[in-house]
């Protein structure tokens, strides 16, 4: 599914690499949570998977494609296979829940159909299905500004899911939400993961959530892998190593 080989990322103005020759792989159907202190390289790690973050060295292989070698068009095709949710949701303002969910299909349609908003019956069913699944069908026509944080993240999840992705990425999707709402969002993510054996890779700050929901935990520190294993095997020492 996902293979990192000696991946390094050095930002233009950064002295220390954000990722330091990282090698690991993720198999189909895993639910991976990435832990690490602020600045450990979690966001950088997630963003290299769909090519939002270019590499300095090494290569990332996703669904059989070397992300680094993909030209614009192929990269877009790959991105449409990879859903992503964000800490600050990144929804399109002034648009309804339904309209936002439809934008998840943008990677899979020619531009003129996107501009005119032409969707097949299947696509519309897919959108309705996921709005229902995240519990927002009653709010479908509501503008996203008028939703709570948890609801906004649900829109983000529905937008990623209508892509019909093989991989779902999350960059701290619950960091702006209260504990109860965070737990509900993780329940939903876990449910989606189980229903379709969806490979899921998510950054979290909350160790409790990671332990409760992940099938595998990856610990990053200064851009290096310091823990990789199941949540059950993770000891206090391992945690201390990740968070120092």
């Amino acid at each position, binding site marked *: 599914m996902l293979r990192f080989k000696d991946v390094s990322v050095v930002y233009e103005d950064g002295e220390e690499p954000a990722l330091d020759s990282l090698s690991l792989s993720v198999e189909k159907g895993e639910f991976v949570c990435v832990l690490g202190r602020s600045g450990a390289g979690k966001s950088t790690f997630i963003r290299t998977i*769909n090519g*939002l973050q270019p590499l300095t060295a090494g290569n990332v292989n996703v669904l059989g494609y070397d992300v680094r070698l993909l030209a614009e068009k192929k990269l*877009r*095709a*790959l*991105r*449409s*296979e*990879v*859903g*992503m949710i*964000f800490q*600050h*949701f*990144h*929804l*399109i*303002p*002034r*648009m309804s829940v339904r309209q936002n969910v439809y*934008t*998840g*299909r*943008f*990677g*899979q349609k020619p*531009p003129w159909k*996107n*501009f005119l908003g032409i969707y097949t019956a299947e696509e519309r069913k897919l959108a309705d299905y996921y709005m229902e699944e995240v519990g927002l069908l009653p709010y479908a026509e509501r503008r996203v500004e008028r939703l709570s944080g948890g609801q906004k993240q649900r829109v*983000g999840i529905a*937008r*990623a899911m209508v*892509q019909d992705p093989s991989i779902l990425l999350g960059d701290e999707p619950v960091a702006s939400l209260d504990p109860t709402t965070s737990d509900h969002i993780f329940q939903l993510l876990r449910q989606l993961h189980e229903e379709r054996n969806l490979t899921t890779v998510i950054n979290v700050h909350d160790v409790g959530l990671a332990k409760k929901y992940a099938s595998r935990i990856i610990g990053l520190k200064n851009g290096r892998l310091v823990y990789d294993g199941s949540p059950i095997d993770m000891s206090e020492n391992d945690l201390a190593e990740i968070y120092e």
Partner: protein
Amino acid sequence: MVWFRKRIFIYAGIIAVLLVLSARGSEFSLIGLFQLGNTWEMLSNRFWPPRWDLVPYLLQQSLITLSIAFFGTFTALLIALPLSFMAAENTSRSVGSFYMVRSLLSLFRSVPEIVFGLIFVVSLGLGPFAALLAIFLHNASVLGKLIAELVESSDKGPQEAMSSVGAGRRTGQLFAILPQIWPNVLSQYFYRFEVAIRTSLVLGMIGGGGLGQSLMNYYNSLAYESMATAIIIIMVLVIIVDVSGGIVRKRVI
């Protein structure tokens, strides 16, 4: 003295010097102020009563003025939108086209409408079309720059989300940026429209048609009572546009 730093006194000094200099430059005189009474006398003697019979004709002229302002600014907006995406650092296709569009916009913006108007009145002849072109050119460049700045300061989050779903460059930019900046774009547009009404009056005075031209014709033929009617209509027009512009802007935001 906690609130005042030394710098403030220096600034105050500079401003005082500038005030004195510009009072001289503009030939400001206190004695002149006392002669303002003469103006009032002249107004009430020669401008009163206005020629009310001209109202229908002048209303027709004001439609021309409105048309110049609306058509000129709206077509300017239509051109400015795509230009602004080319002139914004985060959305331009290449550094080369970015600088080219930017400089073109600055170049056109630096020419006052009245100068465009004078040129077109000579090259295209008297009439509203000259004024229309002047207003179009100026507003396309002004709006292009303003909207480019809005594009540059827009939140990058939605753009990232559009990239991550695999949307094409243009689709992504359009959907991620336009909804964000739309209220500001409209409010800038209405402001430009209000300004364009006043400008098209001035352009009328140099032969650009409409109310401004009528006003100037009356003035040149010393028909002060007719001029009074034109002034009243102008005032009403400007007030109506200001008020409705305010209402519309409030509604959009």
